[in-house]
């Protein structure tokens, strides 16, 4: 057959462009009329915050490369300059689409549903204007810091991601020379200002105006001796990709604190301005902020759509929000108040969040903290929620004299500040805190509880695909395994020994770790399917991940696909693999599910010649996961749990509502629903969890009749 030759760049997609496609899929949820109106606001807001992060990290990094004259082409053969110019086109298009959705669908819909968004302060009624002005005097004015620029005052620092109003002003008794002035729209105040005056024509109607409009309306009050020539909001995005020189940093913690302060000083890589901005004002901004023409985004509507998340929170619109999805359900095997250790001893348990509650994971650590038989608790923390009950439990455990070791990953992007606070708090409580590993991000999610029992030491382990964050566990789909199998316990101990700086164990029983072994393990597992297919056996891989952009893995998949392995990929985000390549055809399919919950779990199925193997992992098939992070893949071996995983995979493959299929042309299209019916996998998972919890309840209270009722939260 010869060399298959799948390594050539035209067989791969650029990851940044693929990411933009992902954000478009999110945007399509905002456009989808089947979604409740306020959910659509949320989706639009998500596309905006996604895009912000994308600029700060990815675009910034490409700009760095261009600045450094780095010309090495990417997986798809594009140089950084080529990527930037391609991105420039699609991001402008994406932004235009965002505002099309905002202006043409959402605003009219909101108005029709009794929420008037006053776009321009000029549109305020007299009564409303009076209310707004009073609001300005009392709440806004005290926190404003106007800054004017003249020969004696330099151009002020415009902070990253902040919304500002730039103005051209003219001295009232001056020579008519225009001066530049700017004021930051304070982030301490809500962007959405609700106007509490009743519309006599429609007393039920609610009206809101954005904070920058309130300021604009009153801006003359800030520059008393000046005439305001024009005033327009603007916003810049700066390069935020902090590369910390770990080998040089004496103390990682201090270094990150320093870098955080530096972040706002980065190079400006995007300037957003109102569409009708005064040309003279724009010129000043562009010159003083050193912005290139192609990095200017003229916005037809309010800048920074993330305020829509605030709007989502406005009271009184619950009927316009998603209610079909039930909240997290109790896990049948882990009723509230049960002894979690006892339940784990009975059998391995697989939790499926957010359909099943995250509570057992928190309780696992809480119970360990107060259990007199527990000797030690060890955990890796990547992103924790504010006020995390897990942190509190860990601190309590340390105070109770348990040995508590926590690896707090300080390098979690945009979360450093948060993490430093937790880390210090834990240290104070007496925990042994490791601040990450030099050169590696610790992305694995593992907790080990060492317990001294009658018959000796027993280790309880939780392994997950999602962070130990009780807040995101309600929004992200993840799976987690609770087990006390000795071979996993031994491996878990070895993991923490390694994280503490000791040598790797002589051997691993069940776990595969990145960056040392995981990639080879994946390649071997894929390779085995290929061999089986070549030997005439059935080859089948199902992988559910968030991103696929590792070239070696993709090449292995191509080769397996060409050998006849059926490969079904469920990839929420970036996918650099192309479908429909010659020699592979539809052996490889890719679908993406973007729905109410953020798909986050990583599940892998390998046919293995009729003896299927199931794995879950904290890693995606990305070079950064496989090569620069500590990640863990764990097998799921109990047949019932394998069945549970297979159900998850199968239902996602059946999804006809929230699934997009990647076409050979590189486009994502919604599933053709003809003949397949309506199947929303996330909704079905909710119903399944609901049913399981109900069955359990019936079992427990089997003496009480439970009438069939419509279930709500």
């Amino acid at each position, binding site marked *: 057959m010869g060399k298959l030759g799948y390594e050539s760049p035209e067989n791969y997609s650029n990851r940044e462009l693929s990411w933009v496609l992902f954000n478009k899929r999110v945007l399509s949820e905002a456009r989808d009329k089947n979604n409740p109106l306020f959910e659509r606001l949320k989706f639009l807001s998500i596309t905006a915050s996604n895009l912000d992060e994308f600029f700060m990290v990815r675009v910034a990094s490409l700009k760095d490369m261009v600045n450094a004259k780095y010309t090495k082409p990417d997986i798809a053969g594009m140089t950084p300059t080529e990527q930037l110019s391609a991105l420039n086109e699609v991001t402008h298009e994406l932004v235009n689409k965002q505002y099309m959705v905002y202006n043409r669908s959402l605003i009219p819909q909101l108005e029709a549903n009794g929420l008037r968004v006053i776009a321009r302060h000029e549109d305020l009624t007299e009564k409303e204007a009076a209310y707004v002005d009073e609001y300005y005097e009392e709440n806004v004015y005290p926190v404003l810091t106007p800054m004017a620029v003249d020969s004696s005052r330099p151009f002020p620092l415009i902070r990253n991601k902040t919304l500002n109003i730039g103005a051209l002003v003219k001295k009232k008794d001056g020579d008519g020379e225009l001066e530049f002035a700017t004021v930051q729209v304070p982030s301490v105040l809500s962007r959405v200002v609700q106007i509490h005056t009743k519309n006599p024509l429609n007393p039920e109607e609610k009206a809101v105006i954005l904070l920058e409009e309130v300021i604009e309306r009153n801006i003359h009050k800030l520059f008393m001796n000046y005439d305001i020539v024009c005033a327009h909001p603007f916003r810049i995005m700066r390069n935020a990709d902090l590369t910390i020189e770990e080998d040089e940093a004496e103390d990682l913690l201090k270094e990150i604190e320093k870098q955080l302060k530096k972040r706002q000083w980065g190079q400006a890589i995007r300037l957003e301005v109102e569409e009708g901005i005064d040309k003279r004002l724009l010129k000043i901004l562009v010159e003083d902020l050193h912005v290139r023409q192609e990095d200017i985004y003229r916005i037809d509507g309010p800048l920074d759509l993330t305020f829509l998340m605030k709007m989502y929170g406005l009271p009184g619109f619950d009927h316009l929000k998603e209610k079909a999805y039930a909240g997290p359900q109790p896990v049948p095997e882990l009723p509230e108040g049960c002894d979690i250790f006892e339940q784990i001893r009975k059998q391995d348990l697989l939790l499926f969040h957010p359909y099943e509650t995250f509570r057992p994971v928190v309780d696992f650590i809480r119970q360990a903290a107060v259990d007199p038989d527990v*000797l*030690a608790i060890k955990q890796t923390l990547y992103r924790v929620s504010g006020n995390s009950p897990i942190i509190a439990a860990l601190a309590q455990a340390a105070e109770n004299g348990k*040995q508590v070791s926590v690896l707090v990953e300080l390098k979690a992007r945009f979360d450093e500040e948060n993490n430093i606070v937790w880390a210090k708090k834990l240290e104070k409580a007496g925990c042994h805190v490791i601040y990450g590993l030099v050169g590696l991000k610790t992305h694995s999610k593992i907790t080990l509880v*060492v317990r*001294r029992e*009658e*018959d*000796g*030491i027993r280790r309880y382990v939780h392994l997950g695909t999602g962070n130990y964050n009780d807040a995101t566990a309600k929004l992200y789909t993840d799976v987690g395994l609770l087990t006390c199998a000795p071979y996993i316990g031994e491996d878990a*101990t*070895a993991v923490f*020994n390694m994280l*503490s*700086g*000791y*040598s790797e*164990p*002589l*051997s691993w029983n069940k776990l595969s770790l990145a960056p*040392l*072994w995981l990639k*080879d393990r994946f390649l071997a597992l894929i390779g085995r399917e290929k061999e089986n297919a070549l030997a005439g056996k059935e080859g089948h891989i199902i992988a559910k991940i968030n991103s696929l952009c590792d070239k070696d893995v993709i090449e292995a998949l191509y080769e397996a696909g060409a050998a006849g392995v059926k490969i079904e990929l469920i990839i929420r985000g970036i996918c650099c693999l192309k479908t429909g390549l010659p020699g592979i055809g539809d052996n490889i399919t890719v679908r993406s599910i973007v729905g109410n919950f953020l798909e986050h779990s990583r599940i892998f199925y390998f046919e293995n010649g009729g003896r299927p193997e199931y794995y879950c992992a904290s890693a995606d098939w990305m070079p950064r996961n496989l090569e620069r992070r500590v990640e863990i893949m764990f097998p799921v071996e109990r047949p019932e749990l394998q069945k549970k995983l297979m159900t998850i995979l199968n239902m996602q493959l059946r999804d006809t509502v929230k699934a997009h299929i990647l076409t050979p042309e590189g486009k994502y299209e919604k599933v053709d629903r003809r003949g397949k019916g309506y199947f929303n996998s996330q909704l079905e998972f909710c119903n399944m969890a609901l049913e399981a919890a109900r069955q359990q309840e019936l079992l427990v209270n089997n003496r009480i009749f439970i009438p069939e009722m419509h279930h709500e939260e």
Partner: protein
Amino acid sequence: MSVKTFAAIDVGSYELAMKIFEVSKVRGMREIDHIRHSIDMGTETYTKGKLSHERVDELCRVLREFADIMKSYQAADYVAYGTSAIRECENRSILLNQIELRTGIRIHVLSNSEQRFLDYKSIAFQGEGFLKTIENGTAILDIGGGSIQISLFDNDTLVSTQNMKLGVLRIQESLNQLGVSLRHYDRLVEEMLESQMNVYKKLYLKDRQIKSIIIVDDYLSNLVKHKMVNGELSGYVDKKRMEYFLEICHTKTLTELAKALDTPEENMPHLYIALQLVKSIMDDMGADQLWVPGVTLCDGIAYEYAEKNKIITSAHDFEKDIIACAQNISKRYRGSKKRSETLEKIALTIFDSMKKVHGLGKRERLLLQLSTILHDCGKYISMVNLGECSYSIIMATEIIGLSHMEREIVANVVKYNHMEFDYYGEKGSLSTLDEDAYLKIAKLTAILRLANGLDRTHKQKFRNIKIALKDETLMITVDTEADITLEKGLFGARARFFQEVYNIKPVIRKKRVL
């Protein structure tokens, strides 16, 4: 709770390792944790004789962490052993004291033979597999960085153990100096081994049939356990598989190999040398099976601890090994087996009847027994300087399972059996020992001399004796028809030293046979 947690610490030349075990009568031993920290102490000690401050700091830091980990497991006890890097430190006592003060961990230094014995014990405790393997001719090959140790079994007893300066790191150093590429390693390793193996075969192996080789090392164990046997954890490899594996090593590049074996590339030359060593020794001995139980020194430490504390018992008799070893040495130097046996019987009878007086234990009894077996080995060299020669032979020969101090005791007891006793503090060789060892030597020498006196004519007249302690007299009743005039006559001088040591007067009585 009958489950105890125990920590075993191995302060090795290139690595600090700690294993946490759970030991219980019911469930035996269970490894809970294995923590390793790479630290190269060997290079400094071997080249400069001392450890640098930085190294000592690092050592103490890790040991303190080990102490914390022990605490977190609520370990009831620990044993820490140091091997050659500590052993060969010039300022060993200062270093050990410093470490103890800084970390609270007291490190004991193991002699080579003690270390090998622990390795051996850990294998023996593998149970079934071990007992089955040694039914046929077996050799243990203990591969270290500086040397290799070959121990031979004959009829399920360990009979000899020999150290050869052919450790993996040493060989690699030589090969590096020669500047040869990996391609030629196999031939050169074989040649380096050959000369020594030829001697070994002639002197020690002789016509023994070796069927299996048990491997203890840090190089192959992991590989064999997890790669060569396709995941079966038994650790058995036959010759065919070994050859197949070597073949792979020859055909793949280092990088490919390292990747295939999940081993860092820099370890590959070591692995390669170790493989070649095993292959050559296998060929030399004609063995066709390997057993790699994958044990470490920490396992040995734990087994020793569990055995001492009567938590577990082994089906294998280790004392028998030590005795067999000594007997083998005696045989090599043409010692008289018959005379040894008589001497052994008399000496042990005296020892047993004097338990209350000498206050010595089971271990000292073994030392006495070894002394009787080796009492005349020096004769092979000189019949005049018997004492000195015996001393030198014993000190130069490894007796597996004995510590350096114990070997010193045996050698001295044998020496002073023939020579004037040197008192402690006088200008004699004994002053280098501690007082405790000195007293043991004196006590055992007194018994051996007495026993020797009773068999002066070497005719084993005193084969049937009864010994009883009555007040200040040791009654030795002989059941013989032979004439014992000579013994009685020469007895006085020997009895005097005995009396000096124990303040008990030995008296010979001949039981009249009617």
